[in-house]
């Protein structure tokens, strides 16, 4: 199939629809308004449901309901809207309902600004809502990946019965690039759910609930959830490495920022500095092993983010003190350019090479 030019938001919608998403609930917020716009036109065409909810809170709880009934359901928003959804996400995680939540990040905190940022890393990977739960978090860095990862998110959600978050910065939402769309998957091809409350007469009663009031019942439930996260961690970690084999300095970033870092690596290599990039694709589970391996050879790490330093904590844990980890970040909706990353990388390497007093 030939490639077509698509907006990041449109690619997300196509990835969802083509993998059986038949319910979308959303509430407008820049920079992801094109998602509900596209869904409002295209959901009815495939016999799906589109609802513009009265609020983000309503939208996520509609996902709770639809997902519970066994439908592949999705909602999307941007940072402040995702904050509003956290209660619902925690409930959904506890009730073990698969769904997909898209966060096209904008600059925060507060109402912030509408330009690209990556300040929601902690919220996405460390909980966000209350209680012991995790989301699988996927970070696309191109429009093609925005489509492919959304497609995959539905399979992951169903397989593990967990909510999956697609975490993209505002640039992915607005970028247009060539995309090869996956074929439309027939609904009959999607595995049946033997737990869904889909109204089966004569069958055992099915209950989906997030209120488990007895401690002797809640503990095993949460332990069971934790076993799922352990399984996810052992099976689903994914990352891309670029020229890391002989790298003196390993730059690490996710999403669009990783592409800026790749450009910077090309420039650094031309100047004789061996640089490489590690780009985590799953932010949760975090691909720690790749960093641990790189730490054996590299002299220093540089984490580059559109925030004031969030992923760097996971990088430091993964590198585990073996090598210094430095940081470069921009915030407020500003995006660093290649030269800034080049300068930061040289700086980091110089610092790492300073003689240490013992």
């Amino acid at each position, binding site marked *: 199939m030939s490639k077509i030019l698509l907006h990041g938001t449109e690619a997300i919608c196509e990835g969802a629809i083509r993998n059986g998403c038949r319910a979308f609930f959303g509430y407008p917020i820049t920079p992801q308004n094109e998602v509900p716009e596209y869904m409002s036109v295209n959901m009815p065409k495939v016999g799906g449901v589109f609802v513009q909810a009265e609020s983000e809170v309503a939208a996520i709880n509609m996902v709770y309901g639809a997902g519970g009934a066994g439908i592949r359901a999705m909602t999307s928003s941007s940072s402040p809207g995702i904050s509003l959804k956290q209660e619902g996400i925690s409930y959904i995680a506890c009730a073990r309902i698969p769904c997909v939540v898209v966060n096209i990040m904008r600059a925060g905190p507060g109402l912030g600004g509408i330009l690209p940022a990556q300040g929601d890393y902690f919220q996405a990977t460390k909980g966000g809502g209350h209680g012991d739960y995790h989301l699988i978090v996927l970070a696309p860095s191109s429009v093609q990946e925005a489509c492919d990862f959304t497609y995959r998110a539905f399979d992951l959600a169903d397989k593990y019965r967990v909510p999956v978050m697609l975490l993209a910065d505002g640039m992915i939402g607005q*970028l247009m690039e060539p995309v090869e769309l996956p074929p439309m998957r027939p609904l009959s091809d999607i595995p049946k759910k033997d737990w869904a409350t889909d109204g089966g007469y004569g069958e055992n009663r099915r209950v989906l609930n997030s209120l488990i009031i007895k401690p002797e019942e809640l503990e095993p439930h949460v332990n069971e959830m934790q076993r799922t996260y352990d399984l996810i961690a052992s099976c689903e970690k994914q990352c891309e490495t670029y020229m890391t084999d002989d790298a003196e300095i390993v730059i690490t970033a996710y999403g669009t920022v990783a592409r800026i870092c790749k450009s910077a690596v090309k420039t650094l290599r031309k100047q004789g500095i061996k640089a490489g990039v590690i780009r985590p694709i799953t932010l949760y589970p975090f691909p720690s092993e790749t960093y641990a391996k790189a730490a054996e050879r590299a002299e220093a790490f540089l984490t580059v983010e559109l925030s004031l330093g969030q992923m760097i904590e996971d990088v430091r844990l993964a590198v585990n003190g073996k090598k210094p980890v430095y940081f470069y970040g921009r915030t407020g909706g500003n995006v660093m350019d290649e030269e800034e990353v080049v300068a930061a990388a040289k700086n980091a390497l110089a610092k790492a090479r300073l003689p240490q007093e013992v």
Partner: protein
Amino acid sequence: MIKILLAGQGGQGVLSAGKMLAESGLKEGKEVSYLPAYGPEMRGGTANCSVIISEEEIASPLCNEPDVLIAMNSPSFHKFTPRVKKGGIVIVNGSMSDCYAGRDDIAVYDIAANDLAMEAGDIRSANIVILGALCRATQIVKDKSIINCLNEKFVGKPALMEINERAFKLGKEAAEKK
């Protein structure tokens, strides 16, 4: 790899021209990216977009240092000209801007796009005039690819198609004279 920054006033067709350029590149089997600068803008405000057309995979979609700048009005011309790469090209809409770049390491094409667009039949085709000049000045995409894009856009509107085709040709000719 060619990085193009298109800038102008909201409503001048800067974003459509950029999109058309990216589509034309895609049709020729190249790697392309199109990134509009979006902000709290409105009609009459500023608009700009970055288009990259490349033979190989595009890493960063940003173009802080464009090879080519298309400036549809005076503020965009003066704001972005200092950023153009050494040896780069600036195509400026001479109907709405002066063309004094203040540097001599770039080539400036002064194209009176609004006037030529009116000559073609509709002032709204000024962006296509500029695309014509761009194709002549850089050969970045084939004329045919842009014309095919226009055909798709104006399918069922032969009168508009004719105006735009004329605008494209006038832009090309204007760039030839420079």
